[in-house]
């Protein structure tokens, strides 16, 4: 079921909320928790019921291993259990996500002819794998004292965050599920929930889904792009991705608030960033935290202990951090998708981080506007790799943006162009249709991203006033009227 489907908004969510509080009002807290679990499993199974056993299997096994880690005292066996647990999760993710990619790479490098397995990527696997690895590691570290089966099930399967995050940490979720105060209907929370849900829905339906049209045409359908089309296609995707994913997060946060559950903030106006590090501290923040805690820090420690110290390079901290950063972003790239374009995207960001750190260290300064401009356009350029399905498509879009396929402008722009350069321009309707609408929407998107408060900041400003009623109703009603074919969220692919 999709967050932006009428089935979800008008039927599923109201029923789940009403029954939940009804059960709570009868003091059947255990039953209400089970109700939430089954609702979440139904929500997941509505996509494809065949995937449900996989999700349950993964949850049960991880719960069992976590339980063993918590109760087991002998440290040698605990390490084995942890290694087994992490390996299981990675193998499962690897099998479903990377098998065909590996086959493709083998075939290309070694000239083999292994047929593809065409394995379908089970929805949410990238997200629940990470959450469960974190759970195992923390159980191993002794940070978790005890965990009940139903809360664990709910921690992984809770429908607002199951499919595409935020990647939640058991420490911030489990206590919320068991807190008695959260079992009582809280009008402030559900008001905030409705408010932010409407914002998210609007971002998805009105902004992201419209921008998607130009991104799809530019990246997937046209064979070549002229200058303007290249820029329209790439900017459309850059904004589409943001509105799509952050809209999803707003809806997730809103739905969770209906149950008095506060999900962690995942976006904080990333396109306002004036350097790449800042951008990553504002974009998909829960993934960043996970990778920092469970990949970067262990990796850095490993490099220090096993490589740099034995080689007598202990003082080369900068080099070690740079290597760890590069590896971190490489992993992030591969996590996002099984393909070399994702690897390239990860490497680009890794290198940019290294350069940024070096720049900071040297104490260089840059004009803020220029810094924003460079950062934003770097993100835009890197997202071409992220979006394109092959390097040929990357080349196609980049070629367009560099004007290598010439410049086409719509005939009505003729009077605006100085005589001296008219000769270099073809005046004709753009193959990318409704280009001027696209430009307008890109400008609007830019203004929204730069000049307005983001949804989390708006949430803080929220007051139970009439103008917030108006705002919420307009966003909600306009959005539901424009819902068409229930466009899937981009991050479901990752």
């Amino acid at each position: 079921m999709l967050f932006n489907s009428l089935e979800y908004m008008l039927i599923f969510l109201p029923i789940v909320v009403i029954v939940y509080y009804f059960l709570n009002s009868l003091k059947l807290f255990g039953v209400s928790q089970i109700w939430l679990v089954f609702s979440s499993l139904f929500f997941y199974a509505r996509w494809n019921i065949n995937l449900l056993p996989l999700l349950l299997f993964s949850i049960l096994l991880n719960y069992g291993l976590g339980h063993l880690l918590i109760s087991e005292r002998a440290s040698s066996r605990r390490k084995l259990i942890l290694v087994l647990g992490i390996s299981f999760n990675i193998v499962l993710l690897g099998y479903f996500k990377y098998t065909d990619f590996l086959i493709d790479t083998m075939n290309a490098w070694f000239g083999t002819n292994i047929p593809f397995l065409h394995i379908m990527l089970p929805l949410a696997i990238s997200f629940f794998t990470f959450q469960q690895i974190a759970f195992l590691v923390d159980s191993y570290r002794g940070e978790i004292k005890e965990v009940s089966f139903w809360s664990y099930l709910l921690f992984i399967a809770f429908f607002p965050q199951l499919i595409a995050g935020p990647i939640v940490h058991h420490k911030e979720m489990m206590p919320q599920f068991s807190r008695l105060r959260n079992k009582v209907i809280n009008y402030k929370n559900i008001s905030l929930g409705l408010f932010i849900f409407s914002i998210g829905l609007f971002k998805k339906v009105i902004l992201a889904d419209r921008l998607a049209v130009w991104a799809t045409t530019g990246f997937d359908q046209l064979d070549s792009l002229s200058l303007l089309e290249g820029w329209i296609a790439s900017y459309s995707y850059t904004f589409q991705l943001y509105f799509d994913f952050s809209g999803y997060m707003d809806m997730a946060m809103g739905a969770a608030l209906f149950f008095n559950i506060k999900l962690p903030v995942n976006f904080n106006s990333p396109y306002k960033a004036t350097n790449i590090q800042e951008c990553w501290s504002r974009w998909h923040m829960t993934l960043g935290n996970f990778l920092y805690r469970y990949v970067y820090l262990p990796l850095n420690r490993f490099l220090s202990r096993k490589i740099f110290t034995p080689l007598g390079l202990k003082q080369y901290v900068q080099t070690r951090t740079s290597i760890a950063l590069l590896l971190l972003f490489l992993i992030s790239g591969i996590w996002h998708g099984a393909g070399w374009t994702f690897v390239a995207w990860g490497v680009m960001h890794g290198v940019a981080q290294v350069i940024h750190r070096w720049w900071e260290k040297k104490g260089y300064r840059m004009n803020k506007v220029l810094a924003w401009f460079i950062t934003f356009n770097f993100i835009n350029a890197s997202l071409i790799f992220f979006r394109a399905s092959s390097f040929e498509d990357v080349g196609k879009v980049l070629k367009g943006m560099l004007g290598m396929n010439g410049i086409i402008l719509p005939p009505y722009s003729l009077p605006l162009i100085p005589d001296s350069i008219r000769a270099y321009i073809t005046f004709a309707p753009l193959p990318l249709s409704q280009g001027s609408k696209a430009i307008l929407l890109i400008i609007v998107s830019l203004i929204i991203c730069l000049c307005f408060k983001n949804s989390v900041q708006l949430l803080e400003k929220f007051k139970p006033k009439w103008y917030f009623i108006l705002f919420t109703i307009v966003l909600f009603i306009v959005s539901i009227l424009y819902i068409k074919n229930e466009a899937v969220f981009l991050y479901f692919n990752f």
Partner: protein
Amino acid sequence: MKTYKRWFHTTIFLILLLIAGIMLFNYIIDPHNIFKTKTYSRFNVKKIELNEYLQQARAIVHQKPEVIFLGSSRVRIGLDPQYYELLTGEPAYNAGLSSSTPSIQLNYLKYALKNNPNVKTVVLGLDFAAFKENTKRHVHYDEERLQTKWYTFDDWTQQTLSISATKASLKVMYDNWFTTIKYTTDNYALDGRQKEEALLPIREQLLGNGENFYYVHLQSYIGEDGFYRNYKLSDEQMDDFKKIIALCKENEIELFLFINPAHAMQWEAIQLAGIWDEFEQWKQELVSLAPIWDFSGFHAVSITPPDRFDDYIDQSHYRKHIGNYIFQRMLHKNEEQVPLDFGVQLSEYNINEHLAVIRDQKANWEADNSDIIHRMQEMYPMEQ
């Protein structure tokens, strides 16, 4: 907390009120003629009919026809239920659907049976193009819709709670109030037939502007990605066609099967696409399953000049009076009015002879009409 409670209740109440209001508004206006709500002059009589796959499903539920015509747009435009009733005394419904294939027709037939187990007669017009392998289904076709006698959730919400429905309602109100036809159309009769009267003026106007639809419409057959390009007979469609025959037998339904007539150019396109053998094979396979009336070929009705719309509105869609001939021939009523060489009932005994006759007629037509063929080849070149 109290103010939050009030805020939430007010907001939810207003949202629900607005949703209900919009749904009711679109339901009453019924801009796409789905719900068949009451119509009032200068309000919602004229409609904007867009989704025929939904409309036909609803009409089947509504009308519970005992005699039903199935097939593509050729059937929908060419076969007149009223004329059928005149000949037989039985009221009929035309459930033709553009670009429908036997698979789709089978499911609509099942749907008709589900809503009225007393279906007595089925008339099914066949198209060679509909038996092509891997043909994409029409975007409006929805299998889920045919599982319920009521509306699917998606249909219901798309028709009442969407911007397209709301805009259409406003347009319908505008046209009805100002007695204009800026947005509304009058394409379909109550008996399901698509009105040729609505199409003819457009075709004539286009011809005046140099766009001859006998040639233009061939695009979907021998243009890029046309039906006749890379044609392969589909086993799946043939199987579903068999199922239609079996289903009718099982339910003791009289089944009339015929190959739709078309202008000679339509058959020549098959020759140009290099799939004449497949065309003949298709007929052979059909005949091996059941007796079939064949109205295709180069007979008196198909070789009229392709710049007049007396018998056709383009190379593939025949007009109503040609459809009347089909009934006259198949039902053996007033047969003397039908041109002699129009319609042959095929069986395994006469098929080879019949195919040979058509080949001869084709050779004759080609010899006399090299200009037409030349123009077709020029417009839609086939790589060798």
